């Protein structure tokens, strides 16, 4: 069974910009796969290579084993895409836009009408069927993109920031819709800047930066890799930094009567730290552990250009993250 997506050493150059820099990625069939990375990482470029909107410079890309150039018709037939930028036919009401799209994929007229109605209903746009796309609100437009991606009943659903600008309640509804599709066997490729979304939905995420793969892991594995922050409040300010050492404790800092530790696992570090502090004559008065979120890990990884990389991350140039935009702390999340 070929993977839903397999790319090998994929390169895309726009003049001097290397938007994809030898990206090799494999998305297993049936998975819910997250593609994360800061702005300009190459996520949209990657997706567009699969559907034929971007011509790759070199490398190979296959969708369910179909080469995206040689077998472009089979590859495209398998994909339903909800793109980041709106690109909807403005001449027709949205119901007909869906029928046309289904028709291009070979779906007969009656069946296309049924599917269009169903897709609109699913995303909560049943009442807007005869409206033109331009007259929908921003969030409705987003939802329509999902309806259009679903209407061809794809084996691979690609969602490029599907919930940007959608209100909280509807976002949860959309998650349910997407999860149901995944449960029924549809492979999902999701890009998002809402890390929480990836954490909740995806069973695997790839983090890419500057067109390269930084790491591929489950969200849990990634969070594990981050360091927790342990804050201990003492009765009195110690003179100097107290000595606390154990495997898994990275650093100790003191500020007045507050001692902070960075540790691989906060819950393991707390008893050790308390014991060592009390042995040194301090009294611990309050303890707080803040676990790293996937968000922290993400910021960390994309800022340092892959310090948190494991072996599967492939060749990562340690310099990539050290300069330019990747250093900006305000990675849009």
């Amino acid at each position, binding site marked *: 069974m070929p993977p839903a997506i397999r790319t090998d050493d994929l390169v895309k150059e726009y003049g001097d910009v290397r938007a994809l820099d030898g990206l090799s990625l494999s998305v297993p069939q049936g998975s819910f796969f997250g593609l994360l990375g800061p702005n300009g990482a190459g996520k949209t470029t990657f997706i567009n290579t699969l559907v*034929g909107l971007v011509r790759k410079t070199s490398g190979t890309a296959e969708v369910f084993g179909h080469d995206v150039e040689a077998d472009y*018709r089979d590859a*495209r037939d398998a*994909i339903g895409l909800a793109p980041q930028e709106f690109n909807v036919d403005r*001449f*027709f009401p949205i119901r007909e836009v869906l029928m046309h799209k289904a*028709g*291009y994929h070979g779906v007969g007229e009656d069946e296309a009408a049924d599917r269009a109605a169903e897709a609109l209903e699913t995303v909560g746009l049943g009442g807007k069927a005869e409206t033109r796309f331009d007259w929908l609100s921003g969030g409705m437009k987003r939802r329509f993109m999902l309806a*259009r991606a679903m209407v061809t009943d794809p084996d691979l659903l690609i969602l490029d920031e599907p919930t940007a600008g959608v209100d909280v309640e509807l976002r949860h509804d959309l998650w349910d819709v997407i999860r149901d599709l995944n449960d029924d066997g549809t492979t999902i490729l999701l890009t998002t800047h809402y890390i929480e979304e990836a954490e909740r939905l995806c069973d695997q995420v790839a983090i890419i930066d500057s067109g390269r793969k930084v790491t591929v892991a489950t969200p849990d594995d990634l969070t594990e890799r981050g360091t927790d922050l342990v804050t201990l409040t003492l009765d009195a300010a110690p003179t100097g930094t107290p000595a606390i050492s154990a495997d898994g404790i990275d650093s100790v800092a003191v500020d007045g009567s507050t001692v902070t530790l960075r540790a691989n696992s906060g819950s393991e570090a707390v008893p050790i730290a308390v014991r060592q502090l009390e042995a040194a004559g301090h009294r611990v008065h309050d303890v707080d552990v803040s676990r790293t979120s996937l968000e922290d890990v993400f910021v960390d990884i994309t800022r340092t250009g892959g310090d948190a990389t494991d072996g599967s991350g492939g060749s990562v140039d340690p310099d990539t993250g050290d300069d330019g935009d990747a250093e900006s702390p305000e990675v849009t999340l």
Partner: protein
Amino acid sequence: MSVVSRGLQSLTRREILRFVRRPYNTFLPPFITNILYFSVFGVILGDRISDIGGVPYIQFILPGLVVLGAVSNAFENASFSIFHGRWNEYIHEALTSPLAYWEMVVAYVVSSALRGILIGILIAGIGAAFTPVRTLANPFYAVAFLGVITTLFAAFGVIGGLVAEDFDHLTVLNQFILRPLVFFGGVFYSLDALSGVARTASYLNPMVYMVNGVRYGVIGVSDIQPDTSLVVLSGLTVAVLVVDVWLFKRGYGLTD
């Protein structure tokens, strides 16, 4: 299964509905323009211009005006539809579907040629109201020429829609290339009116062959032997269609 896939049918249908659903944009402008042409050139000036090849001037220009309307509409429809789809990126709906490249081209060309033919028929109808042309002299040629030239210009329109970078380019293509070709293409005069270089140069203008072909079909008068024209024009059409498919395959103007 038929040769015409469901996908091809859908895109063709979409393209046809796009102009049929907007009748005021599609049919009203050529309707008004041609009433003006027939009134001014046919009725007001026509009486002062002597018969050409034994035909009254108004009847002489009728086929020319049909060609003018048919080819410019075929060209404009294809170029506008493709360009507008690129501009607003909704052409991606078709591009990311499993349609073969040749099917995409056929859908744009067939729908645009159809629009050209409909406008041609509309203009012929207006002409018939001004002057008594009631039957076609050579129906086969009338139909064949109209079919070939609208297809040819729709195919040119595809190229125009792919290479244009903004709306002004479309206007430029129309005003500076299409219009001069048409006006020097013998719509309003017979080649007999020309001599020397002007006459020789006219034989390089493909429009001359089209106008004369349709004229032969409608009123049985032509400056040029129609069979050769038909063959040459058909060959040219096939060549331009091949270029269209090649451009789609390359993603020219369509992909990054």
